[in-house]
């Protein structure tokens, strides 16, 4: 009874809003109608529940945003210099695949990936060293967690000066950016095994290295992957931002900054689409590996 009354109240308010807006501008009403329609479908689907509906709902939401974007651009005749519509961006994307691929290889494969592997590898090795020494734990960890909170992006101009304009400097920026968050997570992870489990290893008279590889590294994996997942986004950011401070005539950051200057915003948005897809795919790959490696952890078993 209460719910029904409240439902009617919400409906009345909605009708009122739509009425007022309709008087103001019919284009806003069209957009609102599309939004409401998609929302009602999603509402119904999520009430139904089930794995299938939960997959479809976000897809509908995303499509709805794209449609609204295109409609808003068309209806309000927004200049392509300010905001191109998704269709125009898709057209540009399709017609300049080779440029996008070249930039992608330069920035992501050469810059971000190499830096990601070097930085995360170094951080894990450093974490093992830190974990072995109480002195380093007390001394290095506060410093590292301080450095992890710093705006490390600021170091990009310096590293570009040191390592030149090509991908090596981008890689160096990525190494610095991913190192500290990864280190903090890895050290936390290496401490995650319980005293009881360590004692058991001791009763087996396991050596330090056996204890490390058989117990503590596996137990650290959920934390490690937490750091590895954070580092994927940081690597993308580092590689692209570093290109603003100087780059060869190729690369996603280079293309973005030059195309902004030439008002080629459809190209810029194509690069953003590439960055988004590369970032999501990178994240998804790491998350997939995590699922395989840490299948035993409660957060993975729940699903």
């Amino acid at each position, binding site marked *: 009874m209460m719910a029904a009354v409240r439902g009617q109240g919400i409906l009345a308010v909605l009708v009122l809003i739509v009425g007022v807006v309709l008087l103001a501008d019919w284009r806003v009403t069209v957009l609102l109608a599309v939004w409401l329609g998609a929302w009602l479908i999603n509402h119904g689907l999520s009430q139904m529940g089930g794995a299938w509906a939960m997959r479809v709902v976000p897809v509908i939401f995303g499509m709805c945003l794209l449609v609204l974007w295109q409609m808003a651009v068309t209806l309000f005749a927004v200049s392509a210099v300010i905001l191109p519509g998704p269709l125009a961006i898709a057209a540009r994307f399709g017609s300049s695949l080779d440029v996008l691929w070249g930039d992608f290889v330069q920035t992501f494969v050469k810059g971000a990936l190499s830096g990601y592997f070097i930085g995360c590898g170094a951080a894990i090795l450093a974490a093992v060293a830190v974990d072995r020494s109480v002195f380093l734990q007390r001394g*290095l960890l506060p*410093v590292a967690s301080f450095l992890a909170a710093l*705006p490390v992006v600021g170091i990009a101009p310096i590293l570009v*000066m040191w390592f030149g304009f090509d991908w090596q400097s981008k890689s160096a920026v990525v190494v610095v950016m991913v190192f500290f968050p990864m280190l903090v997570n890895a050290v936390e992870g290496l401490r995650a095994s319980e005293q009881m489990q360590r004692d058991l290893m001791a009763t087996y008279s396991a050596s330090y290295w056996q204890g490390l590889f058989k117990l503590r590294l596996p137990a650290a994996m959920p934390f490690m992957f937490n750091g590895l997942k954070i580092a994927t986004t940081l690597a993308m950011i580092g590689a692209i931002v570093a290109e603003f401070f100087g780059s060869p005539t190729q690369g996603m950051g280079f293309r*973005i900054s030059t195309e902004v200057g030439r008002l080629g915003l459809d190209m810029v948005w194509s*690069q953003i689409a590439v960055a988004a897809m590369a970032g999501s795919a990178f994240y998804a790959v790491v998350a997939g590996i995590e699922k395989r490696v840490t299948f035993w952890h409660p957060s993975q078993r729940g699903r």
Partner: protein
Amino acid sequence: MRNLAPVLVVVGCIMALWYSAAVMMNAQWERDQAGRAGVTVSWAQIVPATMHQERPVLPAPHQVAAELWQLTFVEETEGRRGLLQSGSLSNRGLLIHAWVTLSATMLGFAMGAGFGILLAVGIVHNRAMDASVMPWAIASQTIPIVAIAPMIIVVLNSVGVAGLLPKALIAAYLSFFPVVVGMVKGLRSPDAMQLDLLRTYNATAAQGLWRLRFPASAPYLFASLKVGIAASLVGTIVAELPLGGAGLGTRLLAGSYYGQTIQIWATLVVAAVLAAGLVGVVGAVQGRVLARMGMRA
């Protein structure tokens, strides 16, 4: 305080490494200069010289400290455009840049945190929102928004949105996500028993939110606010890169164009102090609030 000695040793080691790296990296320039002048120099001459170059590859710590002192305290007290002479902060000093960056960061953080909390409340109370918004909120963070921030700023400027707001928008975008994730976790942290108790009291959803869910979410909220405020500082600095005028990001880019390495390092130190200060303030508030609520900080 038992951590003090190890921390000091580690910081000392970093300083020592820094000095030796400065000698190694700046030595080449001294040798080139000597080579052009046609004289040979020994290490004993090179080492002191590398400490006082005007545009070193890597400035020594004391150079950075001196520059920092010069650009903050000396500039404001003795400079013609400084605080004492003109009554306002000098546009050549670092304090005005730090202030501009700080204000944009705070505005962006307030917007981002507020939006994040609202979104989290919606997600917790509405299934449709949970299913449709959450995956996209996660996907939105895999987009390197920081990387495209300069473009967004330029476009917003061309539309006529200028000043503090565009920078704050980038900062808000970066800080809202950690807040959403932490807050959703926090609002869901009361266990079923407590929720059932409220239902037996015939409490409404709003009462459940204010009396149970919000208090229970406080530790999660503060943990994510710390991440969020650091992220919004990074967002502001990057957003300032393409803009003229004031701001730490602008200073970084200017320093990089003109090869003013000491100035870049001094700016970085200011940014670091700002970041540590902001996180520290949130941490202090966290300690106070949680202690008042009877939780351990």
